[in-house]
């Protein structure tokens, strides 16, 4: 191979190699330890602080597990009546990381760590972040629009939160003997 041909061949590589795909593979698939730590810091603001600290920690850990379990390109529920084929999109993790970085930077700009801000400052930051991400309502489940809204959805849409709200052991969608459902749910201790 002539030297010029070799140079031309190397120069053409970007056009033929699947760099777009490589870029996708290069995207982080997991929240970084720093991001998880920041989520733990945010959790008492957005989840009920009245639940035990261990429960708060568990809620964040479950959400992190959710992000790890996300699969791309999988058929979503088709629906009934007017069915439509939709597939799951790209992992939300890269967006989540950017949103957490942004929140952290906003907090610093207001004078310090997230937990050091007063509640109204935190609310204002989240309000702006949700508006920017197009989050209007609590998502029915994490949808990848905003990491904090998704953390909230993951908790507040759970059977555990339903029980907490009603102060009753309803155990929605939890496998249990059908006879239990014939009785008024026991109050939560």
């Amino acid at each position: 191979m002539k030297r010029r041909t070799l140079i031309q061949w190397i120069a053409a590589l970007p056009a033929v190699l699947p760099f777009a795909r490589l870029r996708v593979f290069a995207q982080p698939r997991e929240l970084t330890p720093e991001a998880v730590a920041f989520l733990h810091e945010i959790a008492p603001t957005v989840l009920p602080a009245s639940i035990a600290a261990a429960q708060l920690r568990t809620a964040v850990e479950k959400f992190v597990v959710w992000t790890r379990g996300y699969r791309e390109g999988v058929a979503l529920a088709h629906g009934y009546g007017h069915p439509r084929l939709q597939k799951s999109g790209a992992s939300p993790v890269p967006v989540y990381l950017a949103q957490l970085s942004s929140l952290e930077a906003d907090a610093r700009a207001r004078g310090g760590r997230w937990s050091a801000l007063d509640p109204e400052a935190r609310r204002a930051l989240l309000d702006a972040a949700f508006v920017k991400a197009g989050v209007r309502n609590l998502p029915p489940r994490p949808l990848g629009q905003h990491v904090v809204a998704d953390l909230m959805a993951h908790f507040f849409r759970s059977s555990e939160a339903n029980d907490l709200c009603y102060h009753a052991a309803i155990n929605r969608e939890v496998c249990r003997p059908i006879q239990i459902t014939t009785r008024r749910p026991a109050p939560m201790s």
Partner: protein
Amino acid sequence: MAVHETDVCIIGGGITSAMLALKLSELRPSLRLTVVEAGRSILDVQNRGRYRERALEYGEHPWPEDYIEDQQAAGIISMTMAVGGLALHWGGACNRFSEEDLRLKSMYGLATDWPIEWRELERYYCEAERRLHVSGEPSPHPEDARTQPYPQGPIPLSYNLQLLKAWAEQSGLKFQSLPMARNLTPFDGRGGCCVYDTCGEVCPSGARYSPDFTFRQLTQPKKIVLHDRTLVRRLVLDDRRATIVSATGVHQDRPDETIEYRAKKFIVASGYCWSSHLLLLSANARFPNGLANSSGLVGRYMNGHRFINASANIDDQTYPGQNMTHSLISREYFRCRADRPFVRHDTRVWESSSGRNPRLRTPDGKLLLGDELMADWRSRTKGSSVRLRAYVDVHPSADSRLTLDASKKNRHGNPMPKIEHHFDEPTLARQAATKEHVLGVFGALAKAGNGRVVNTSDGDYLDHPGGGCRMGADPATSVCDSFGRTHDHENLFVVGAPTTPTGGCTNGTLTFVALTLRSADEIARA
């Protein structure tokens, strides 16, 4: 070309196919039965729990790859095409129609009568309930008398439904536990109900009947041959006689190789959409409008029922999430006096959390976080929300059609179906009065319990669709006889939903199965 010889070739692998194959294998064990289904088999019951978890957590479809992307129709209600069909993810409701459905013409001068006596159909309802292991209780209405008890007692009413029953019956209507094909205890290789409460998506225990269990029972001891992922594209007519000699199709992995199924009898068990579609696709020089279509009615009188929804708020305190897939039903308005304006519908009641879910913002836009959000949610849980729905009896016109859409073709070049529902003149004329009546019933229910209806909506499709190959005694006005035998071809049957002349006013699956079990007797005899 691969050739497969059999005695009976059943095209389609849904609930009617399963019931037909099961019964034929019992009545005529020596018959060679072949079921050909376009979709794939999803028989991994052991993975259902995981599929359910992913559906709840990620919104994933709980029946992986249960569709064929280019084999879809405009106007269908589900994309599912797999062994088990739509009944893989049905709710399990097993309501019977009533005698009025079979006598609309003679009792009310509307639509048409079915060519079956109620007493005979009732026997097959009993058989369908036995085979699906339906859990239910007798209706409080004497007109709904049964000749056999349900195979299981009713699904126990949750605490919520007990409250709602007491509330709803203050209106004077009588309600009962919805009959469902749901095991209360393990039965027939399926588990007992443990209230996963995702009946309409996937049931991990198998308590809610789905046809994949029947196909497993039939294929493992080789009582039938099941060819999945094989699309039948055409029925082929004998050169001289009006009988079908073969069905030709292709396997998904070998699209260039035609498979020929030769059989003595062909049963089209492909549901409300694909049955008519196959007959129309099979047009030839002698039947240029499609097989079984000398009446011109294949693909016509497509039916189903309309529905009207409402939410009501009441004072009684319920706890949403106890058993949201179970419900109450009133059959009060299955009957209509002949001297009154015609209106027929069922009335259903569910527990609900509508309007009582957590929210992110107050009505004035304030962002709610943490304890505030929980407090706001809690403040809105006093009393209860109730979900109400009525399936309304509407009748199709001849223009309610399935046609071949030349602009949409599958990978093989076959035009895909297009379904457009249209009502007959009397149905259109009474629509406003029907809606007023149903909303009046909802209003009376709410009011009797110190409640109020807070919103209403109309369904924008017809549920439990059927038709397209309607049965009748007259070959000029129907496609097949009461057994589903086509008038034009003595060895070609259509079973289940497509044969129904009208769509009733309650869930149709049990009726589709009962009709199919009756067809099975005739197919075994013939």
